[in-house]
């Protein structure tokens, strides 16, 4: 039996599959939009992993665009939402959805408005067939619950997508707080360096303890303490040591939102230690965290007050 060249080459390529497959570590890849550049360089050293990982991350990014369209009731605007604000606060920050007379530039629609569309009747038909509204009109925002399947699929596609976990948990915590916690736990397992996830989980656990009428409030408090402590520990590890709040532009990997949340995580860890642990430990924690941030007014005042009450 004679083999053609292409058959031999195909067989050789097939034989290489196990070798190549061994080099792929799906969770080791982080896309270029990720924050920690050193970690990126360290992790993304496999060419195949990088190719597959970038495809995966691009899919997740495309789904982010899809969520914007869902949020605007099907109308496709040029991407303009502040995803970081959404992930940290759950706010839909598209400062252009006001009454249309605030003088600010509005984000254009993907299908252009009649006055800017060179396609004449084709453009007119597309505007009638696709969901479209005048970009100058106030934006309509739909319920975030409709977006949740996309965040689920996004995190399946790219488990290192921290923002997808954050925004998904934000929308989920209203109707399903326990599921939101589980979603965040999954995110924490996949992203042990992301302090935002335990920080958000701590807030949800705290809310659950407020609402809890079945006697498991203590359990939620304990969870919240664990989450805030974990978040604060990660902050200590991940925050740039020389971070300067007056010049955040010098720290692209550590945004102002992140800094604010990092301080929030540390403060909550101290508050819970004070209220449900020991005052001495709370003082120690507060001093340590304040040192990490190079001074923090709230923590410093807390140390002072706790010191007085301990004495």
């Amino acid at each position, binding site marked *: 039996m004679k083999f053609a060249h292409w058959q031999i080459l195909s067989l050789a390529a097939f034989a290489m599959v196990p070798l190549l497959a061994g080099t792929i570590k799906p969770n080791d890849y982080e896309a270029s939009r990720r924050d920690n550049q050193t970690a990126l360089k360290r992790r993304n050293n496999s060419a195949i992993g990088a190719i597959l990982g970038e495809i995966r991350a691009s899919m997740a990014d495309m789904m982010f665009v899809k969520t914007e369209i869902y949020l605007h009731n*099907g109308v496709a605007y040029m991407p303009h939402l502040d995803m970081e604000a959404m992930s940290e606060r759950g706010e839909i920050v598209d400062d252009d959805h006001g009454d249309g007379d605030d003088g600010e530039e509005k984000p254009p629609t993907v299908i252009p408005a009649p006055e800017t569309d*060179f*396609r004449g009747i084709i453009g007119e*038909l597309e505007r009638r067939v696709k*969901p479209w509204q005048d970009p100058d009109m106030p934006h*309509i925002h739909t319920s975030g619950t409709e977006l*949740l399947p996309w965040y689920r699929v996004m995190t399946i596609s790219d488990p290192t997508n921290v923002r997808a976990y954050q925004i998904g948990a934000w929308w989920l915590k209203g109707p*399903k707080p326990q*599921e939101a916690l589980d979603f965040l736990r999954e995110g924490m397992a996949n992203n042990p360096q992301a302090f935002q996830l335990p920080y958000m989980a701590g807030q949800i656990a705290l809310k659950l303890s407020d609402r809890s009428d079945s006697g498991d409030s203590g359990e939620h408090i304990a969870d919240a303490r664990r989450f805030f402590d974990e978040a604060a520990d990660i902050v200590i590890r991940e925050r740039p040591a020389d971070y300067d709040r007056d010049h955040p532009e010098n720290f692209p990997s550590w945004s102002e939102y992140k800094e604010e949340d990092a301080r929030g995580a540390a403060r909550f860890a101290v508050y819970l230690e004070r209220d449900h642990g020991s005052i001495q430990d709370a003082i120690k924690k507060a001093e340590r965290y304040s040192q990490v941030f190079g001074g923090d007014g709230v923590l410093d005042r807390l140390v002072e007050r706790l010191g007085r009450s301990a004495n």
Partner: protein
Amino acid sequence: MNAIWLIAKGVLIEAVRRREIYAVVMVSVLLIGAVLTVDFFDLEGIEKFYREVALKVMSFATAATAIVLAARQLPREFETRTIYPMMARPVSRLQFLLGKLLGVLLATLFCLTIFMTVYAAGTIYLKHDIPWQLFTQYIYLQLLMMAIVATMSFWLSMILNLDAAITISAIFYLAASVLSSLVTYIFPDLNAIGKYLLTGFVYIVPQLQIFDLSAKAVHGNDWPPLKFDTIGMLTAYAFVYSGLFIGFSLFSFRRRAL
């Protein structure tokens, strides 16, 4: 008319008997079924996601069926020589092509009907609403789109080999919406000649995205159905382009020695 109907019936029966149409349907139904089984945090009121996935799967599967079926019609008639007894009958080449087109469209409708049945069953199971008017319009516009794609496949299969015809038709279908967005993005940055060329491109190449009602159908609770004049314009547009492609196919068909 009788001849056209007989040819169309032949295409439809053949399509229904062949197994690949069911393979496409099966894979699509499995995909739609998989979406049904995924538990998204046990939440209710997330029908838009289900609609989106189902409609995308239905559109792609229908297009794949229409393209392959249409592109194969004429080359196979020549290959198996069944074209000769057909042409010996009092059937004109135009009637022959129209019969083939009608058959492909009926097979497409057959596919869409199966998909819609599965979709409707899933929707009822999930206790969601179906915006029927928009969905009926969606199916009608899909058929118009498929008429353009199928007639283009006829023509391509007459001037290229079968594989190339299928590939180009598939690429054309898949790239339609991307190309549409792309032309509007790049237009402002072009010089005068580029702008003329791009305008020509938009009017010469059929714009399939204007038949894609899926986005409105997905967000159907908030958008009204299309008005009759819009449906009329889209129908006229599809007739013009299908007519042109049928004309090109006829021209190539006539040049071919029998």
